[in-house]
């Protein structure tokens, strides 16, 4: 017989429940996250508060522990799946309840690159931070990035690549923006495992983002700077 007692989420007070949800997110427990979100909604919590105080706060711990080598990719993906399950409930409610709007972003992997795990994490964390994100998926040529930015009236263009062979394509997209006189219309952020700060600077991006948490912070800073 186990010494551990099952935790009944509905019996926890709000503070304990939020803390438990952060733990459940860390452990990738999607069903518990869904249950926690539903309980807080029933208790009259505003969706934006559930998103930021339970889900984003929990995912921030996950991101920090990934950065510090405590968690690895599988655990981050499980946590992301759990957060996504909670987000699925909250997302339709956020617009109705006047959640803050930080800005709009188009994100996709570059031409020749099909690795979308990173950009999907960034999408989720950006949405959690109040950005509207249009994720245009994988293998995008310059014209598709630019068309999506125009159509979505984006503030930010995000490009992702996992391969050394595909990351140079980011410069082609930036050069095409310049060619069309659109470069100053968009903040360009880049990320992906083989990239670094030096590469981001060399291709003319506005920011290199080491991970999803950095992407959110850079986006907030650059949007604020542009508005100033």
């Amino acid at each position, binding site marked *: 017989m186990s010494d551990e007692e099952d935790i009944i989420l509905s019996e926890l007070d709000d503070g304990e429940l939020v803390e438990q949800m952060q733990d459940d997110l860390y452990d*990738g427990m999607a069903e518990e996250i869904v249950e926690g979100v539903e309980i807080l909604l029933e208790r009259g919590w505003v969706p934006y508060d559930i998103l930021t105080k339970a889900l984003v706060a929990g995912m921030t711990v996950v991101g920090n522990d990934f950065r510090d080598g405590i968690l*690895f*990719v*599988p*655990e981050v*993906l*499980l946590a992301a*799946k759990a957060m996504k399950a909670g987000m699925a409930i909250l997302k339709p409610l956020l617009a109705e309840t006047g959640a803050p709007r930080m800005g709009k972003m188009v994100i996709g992997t570059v031409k*020749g*690159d*099909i*690795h*979308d*795990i990173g950009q999907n994490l960034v999408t989720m964390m950006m949405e959690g931070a109040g950005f509207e994100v249009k994720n245009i998926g*994988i*293998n995008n040529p310059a014209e598709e990035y630019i068309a999506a930015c125009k159509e979505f009236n984006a503030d930010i263009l995000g490009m992702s690549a996992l*391969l*050394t*062979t595909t*990351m140079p394509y980011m410069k082609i997209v930036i050069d095409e923006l310049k060619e069309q006189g659109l470069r100053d219309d968009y903040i360009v952020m880049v990320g992906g*495992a*083989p*990239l*670094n700060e030096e*590469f981001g600077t060399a291709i003319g991006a506005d920011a290199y983002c080491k991970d999803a948490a950095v992407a959110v912070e850079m986006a907030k800073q650059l949007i604020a700077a542009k508005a100033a």
Partner: protein
Amino acid sequence: MTMKPRILLLACGALARELRTMMAGPGWAHCDLHCLPADLHNRPDQIAPAVERAVLARRDDYDDVFVVYADCGTGGQLQATCDRLGVQMMAGPHCYAFYDGLEEFAARDEATCFYLTDFLVRQFDAFVWKPLGLDRHPELLSMYFGNYTTLIYQAQTDDAALTAMAQDCAARLGLAFERRFTGYGELADIPARFA
């Protein structure tokens, strides 16, 4: 008679078996092999520092050092390190490219293909399945491999048992299977660099 320079081959552990096989043949007697742990394959940010430490530790015993890594996901960091240390390395993005031949590989349009070599077929569980957590969480499979269509087994040797294992790997990943014999590709050209 002129003595050939002594060369240290500083290699990825994932190439050890192939290099040892070739080094048992003619033309490699002036080369010694030192391998770094193959699991750096999954931690490319650690490759350049590990190579630098090994070069500095062992270069005084040799006339030259040759780094048997391609870029391998280091985003140019390994090339920059080798340039700074004054040593040569394999050209190209990764071993899949130099096994195939750099020009041939670059000409292929295989963005949705996942590659295994002889080494990776033998070590599939240790280097692919378990590090991705698929032994514990098979539900993550589609997040990792959902955009891939085909597993290409780049065969260095003709080995029916390995081919069967590679087919099994493709089935586990839910991918179509193709075998492509490459032999040792551009690894075989290493001695000529120091002739």
